[in-house]
């Protein structure tokens, strides 16, 4: 038994004890392969389902398919697996920021199945967030199995996310950067190496099983100065579309919440609307990669107005799918909407400036994708490297940097938090590494209690109290009522006037000098709130009261002392 435990605790092995980087790299490879396989499984299932339903696309009843898919997906998530719905990525960020990357085992497959049902039946969503969730959950549970600590678990969660993105796009750098930029929110050497290796493992798994396929490798992307200037306009347009999409997704969620019915019925209603929308604009259905390919290759023949309408229709369809209870992510819809936006912008340029020889429209579709991803995720590097990798070329690097950076900046101005973290920021639950809140979250009031103060009774005479003061090192004294309930505090500073007047010793009882309006702390209070109260009221320590009984004192000095220790644990 002990041997088995030892095998499951590799971090205790002599080889890894001094430095766990090699252990994390080994684990990263395992996690990268597993998450890569999960990503490929979803990708293959989606292809099969979409191809199967494609044969029925001419039937009148086809609009009902997204409704069936969304309903099944919602039913599966809410009733079979009993998992709260969501896009996946915010849950991963939440677990990393609050609970050291702890994710339920069921999350490693729940979103794969549910998003497959939603997207495979024609719902407008992407498979990337579900595979990120799945990969992250795989990483988290592998870390749990091997009894790794919080920091190591967070790294493996990142490995899972990176491996999944790397596998699904065959883009290892984008996988790594997406993880650092969006999921972890920090660039530390300890994390980068295992995550990079996991990315490689994920991408290699994909290459072994489906081949080293670069989607848009044959594109000519020779941009000139005038294209570069136009990129600034495109960045502004993608930023506007990103903001529109962020707000529409969130508002649609609030609208759907007002419909008081079972979640799966609500999801079916949203799916039905998507199906109806798909009658007019078929490009809004499913993940939409076929439309992207057509646009990037320049074979998308519809005019400017149709393309612009398609972009807005896709935003609406994605909001209806995800906001009403379908399962999936926004990554693929962002790419589709971005390419529509880029294409529309190119066509507008051609109409307004017909004499200029613009680069091909596929290039603008790619730049639009980068702008959209950078805007909505507020992750410019992810946008840049994803496009570089799926085109297999760095020729378009300069316009990519321009579009991504400007789009991110403009979006940040109107929407300070990205779509993924907006809810968390609003609830004060986004605790990025190295921040005060993050460090303090791992500490609790109970573990900082100080017990070395002397508790006195309310009916004690001042003379007796003087004796207590003589033997005490503290300058405050908690006071209890006869029944043991907390009555307040006596501060040494406030009794000084009576100390030198011996006549008062037998004239005063503690009840007369106790401060009974003192602010107290409960066991469940957040330490950041406690510190804020101390700062606002100029306090150095506060009594902790539980069920109306004095439990101990908590002081600023102790908080800061433990803060330092915890910071060390979290950063080394």
């Amino acid at each position, binding site marked *: 038994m002990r041997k088995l435990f030892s095998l499951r605790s590799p971090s205790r092995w002599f080889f890894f004890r001094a430095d766990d980087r090699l252990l994390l790299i080994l684990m990263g490879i395992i996690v990268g392969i597993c998450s890569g396989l999960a990503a490929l499984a979803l990708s293959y299932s989606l292809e099969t389902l979409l191809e199967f339903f494609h044969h029925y696309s001419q039937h009148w009843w086809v609009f009902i398919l997204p409704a069936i898919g969304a309903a099944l997906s919602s039913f599966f998530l809410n009733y079979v697996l*009993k*998992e*709260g*719905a*969501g896009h996946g990525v915010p*849950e991963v960020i*939440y*677990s990393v920021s*609050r*609970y050291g990357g*702890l*994710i*339920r085992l*069921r999350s490693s497959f729940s979103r794969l199945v549910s998003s497959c049902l939603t997207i495979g039946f024609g719902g407008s969503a992407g498979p990337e967030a579900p595979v990120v969730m799945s990969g992250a959950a795989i990483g988290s549970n592998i870390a*749990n199995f091997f*009894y790794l600590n919080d920091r190591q678990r967070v790294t493996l969660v990142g490995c899972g996310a990176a491996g999944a993105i790397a596998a699904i796009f065959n883009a290892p750098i984008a996988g790594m950067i997406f993880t650092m930029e969006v999921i972890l929110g920090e660039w530390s050497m300890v994390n980068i190496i295992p995550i990079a290796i996991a990315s490689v493992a994920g991408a290699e798994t994909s290459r072994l099983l489906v081949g080293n396929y670069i989607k848009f490798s044959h594109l000519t992307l020779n941009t000139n100065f005038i294209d570069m200037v136009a990129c600034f306009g495109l960045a502004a347009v993608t930023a506007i579309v990103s903001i529109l999409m962020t707000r529409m997704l969130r508002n649609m969620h609030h609208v759907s919440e007002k419909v008081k019915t079972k979640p799966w019925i609500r999801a079916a209603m949203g799916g039905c609307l998507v199906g109806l929308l798909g009658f007019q604009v078929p490009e809004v259905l499913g993940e939409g990669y076929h439309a992207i390919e057509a646009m990037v290759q320049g074979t998308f023949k519809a005019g400017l107005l149709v393309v612009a309408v398609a972009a807005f229709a896709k935003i609406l369809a994605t909001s209806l799918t995800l906001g009403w209870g379908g399962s999936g992510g926004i990554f693929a819809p962002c790419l589709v909407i971005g390419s529509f936006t880029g294409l529309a912008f190119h066509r507008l340029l051609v109409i307004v400036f017909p004499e200029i020889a613009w680069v091909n429209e596929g290039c603008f579709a790619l730049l639009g994708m980068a702008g959209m991803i950078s805007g909505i995720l507020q992750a410019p590097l992810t946008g840049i490297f994803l496009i570089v990798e799926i085109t297999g070329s760095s020729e378009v690097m300069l316009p990519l940097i321009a579009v991504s950076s400007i789009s991110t900046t403009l979006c940040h101005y109107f929407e300070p938090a990205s779509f993924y973290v907006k809810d968390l920021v609003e*609830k004060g*639950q986004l605790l990025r590494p190295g921040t005060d809140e993050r460090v303090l979250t791992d500490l*609790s009031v*109970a573990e900082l*209690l100080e*017990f070395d103060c002397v508790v006195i009774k309310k009916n004690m005479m001042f003379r007796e109290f003087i004796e207590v003061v003589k033997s005490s090192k503290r300058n405050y004294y908690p006071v209890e009522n006869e029944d043991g309930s907390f009555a307040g505090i006596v501060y040494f500073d406030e009794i000084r006037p009576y100390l030198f007047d011996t006549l008062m010793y037998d004239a005063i009882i503690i009840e007369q000098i106790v401060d009974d309006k003192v602010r107290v702390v*409960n*066991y*469940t209070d*957040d330490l950041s709130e406690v510190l804020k109260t101390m700062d606002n009221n100029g306090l150095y320590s506060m009594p902790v009261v*539980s*069920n*109306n*009984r004095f*439990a*101990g004192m908590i002081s600023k000095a102790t908080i800061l002392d433990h803060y330092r220790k915890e910071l060390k644990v979290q950063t080394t």
Partner: protein
Amino acid sequence: MDSQLFHIFRNTPLGRETLLQSIYFSKQTNASLNIYIPKFIKFLMYFDNDVVQVDLDESYLSSPDTALDRVKNLVESNGLSANFIEPKNFTASTLPDIPVNFDFMCSPRSISDLTSKIGLGHIGTRVRRIVQSAKFPVLITTPVYSEWNNITVFFGGSHNSIKALKLGIRLSRLTGKELFIFTQLDGKKREHYQEILEKEELQKEINLMVTKWNFYGSKSFEENLYNVPHDSLAIVGAYGHSVIKNIIFGSKMEKIQSTIQNNFLVVGPNYGQVS
């Protein structure tokens, strides 16, 4: 420092009985009551190395309007006051995170499965997961309120049973109730168990606190279990094995809980661990 007892309230007759058990335990051990009245059918408990999703059965949400008053009435009529837990953090909009920094948790045998199974000596899967992951011992109560007047620790020499014994000593000191030790000899000599305690430097405390150390060697374990006083709080160390492992390897804990119908305080493998 006073200890904290966590209780999930179920607004049904069974829930009332379980709450009475918590109140009794709190009064005996001077623990503060922390009560969660669920507003959602599920919640998460983030432990150090595991996250447990507790899917409550529907009865936990029955008549929420009256739940708070009922709890207050019951608690206050017993001269206690309770702290009501309101979840601050949510993993998803309908999935609250419940704090886990308690010293004890009180639970019926099942919180997710059919309550009708309780009478058959069944411990639910969620309760098992909590026992396996929690740093606090779990008080698994009898279906009907019954007071316990003494404490029996099941000691078989394992690491977990030593932890259970230490907890028994602590509770005996806190409550002033008699402490008994139950040991099934399993072919070993008494000295073997006494040596284990000597190694743990517990012999002195055992001599001081334990009323009687009962060694059983002649009959089977199940038969000997009937010697445990019916009004005893049974403290058992559990490894938190899965059902499959229990079937293959067997488990003393399973035999105990399915044979006697006392209140149990189950000490899991992570009990007392420091983060």
